């Protein structure tokens, strides 16, 4: 760019020596171009027949119970639904009843991502990175209209139309913003979903 070349001649310049914006811009452009299609529901491959005939062993039940009873949330709240999430956290609605009183600042210790808020394309790489850093098993609750479809800003030039362009979403909670009761209902739905999951335990040395 011509601006880049002119930088050397100007005395006041706090930005010398950086192609940061250009590399960031190309990163966002690649992510945006790769994210045209939505990522399907992770359970979509199962037809009704399989869902009905799955056997839940006792071990499955115990592990699922442990997982669903201590959903720790990663801190990734880009916008205003976070306010409603805060009110769901504190004493009046009290998410601690569901084993969720811990907010993990590190995504590596978190199971659940509650995507509270509008996501812009500039923020999208960071959210995807946080999701990739979370350890398996991990779940995502799409909170609010923006998380479901982009909401009011769906046709905007800068907003991701739904988090499922970036990461797979397990439960969608509509509303702008959803009331804390709605969020809690969504969490309960996720817990019911986790309760039905089949756990694969890999024993070293055994072939599956």
């Amino acid at each position: 760019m011509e601006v880049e070349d002119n930088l050397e001649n100007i005395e006041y310049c706090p930005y010398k020596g950086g192609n940061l914006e250009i590399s960031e811009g190309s990163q966002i452009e690649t992510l945006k171009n790769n994210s045209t299609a939505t990522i399907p529901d992770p359970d979509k491959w199962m037809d009704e027949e399989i869902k009905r005939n799955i056997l839940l062993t006792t071990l499955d039940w115990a592990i699922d119970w442990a997982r669903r009873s201590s959903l720790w949330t990663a801190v990734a709240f880009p916008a205003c639904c976070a306010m409603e999430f805060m009110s769901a956290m504190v004493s009046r609605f009290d998410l601690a009843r569901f084993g969720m009183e811990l907010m993990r600042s590190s995504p590596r210790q978190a199971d659940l991502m509650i995507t509270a808020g509008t996501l812009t394309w500039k923020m999208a790489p960071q959210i995807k990175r946080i999701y990739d850093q979370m350890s398996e098993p991990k779940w995502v609750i799409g909170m609010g209209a923006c998380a479901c479809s982009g909401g009011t800003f769906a046709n905007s030039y800068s907003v991701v139309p739904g988090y499922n362009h970036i990461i797979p979403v397990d439960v969608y909670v509509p509303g702008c913003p959803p009331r804390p009761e709605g969020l809690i209902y969504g969490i309960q739905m996720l817990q019911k979903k986790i309760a039905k999951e089949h756990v694969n335990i890999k024993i070293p040395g055994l072939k599956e």
Partner: protein
Amino acid sequence: MTAVLSGREIAERITGKHPKSIISIENQSVLIGSENLLKVADCLKNDPELDFSLLVDITAVDYFDYFELVYRMTSLKSNTSLVLKVRCNNRENPEVPSVTGIWKGADFMEREIYDLMGIRFTGHPNMKRIFLWEGFKGYPLRKDYL
């Protein structure tokens, strides 16, 4: 409460130093030519009687035929504020002189206008996008975007 100067009062303060720089006087503002912008801004900031040391805001308006830049500034000494306007008629390659040399706070405001309206500020030290990412096509706050 900061007193807002009327167009006539602003013109009285400017014409003493820079006659002929004012194109027209509006109710609450004056319109000046972009070639005189730096001279007038320098006078408004550095003249000890005027002392408009705080640049509150710069915005741009798209009127299809021309872009209009609106400079709002406040004098903390006399507790008054005024509005300057500058027009830019070239839609293909709009350019206005940058006031970063006079108010350093204009840096991010001018980058924002460049980002969303596509008006280039000549003499700005770092004329890059600020909100949108590098590689974004078009200027989204223009009326003919999309």
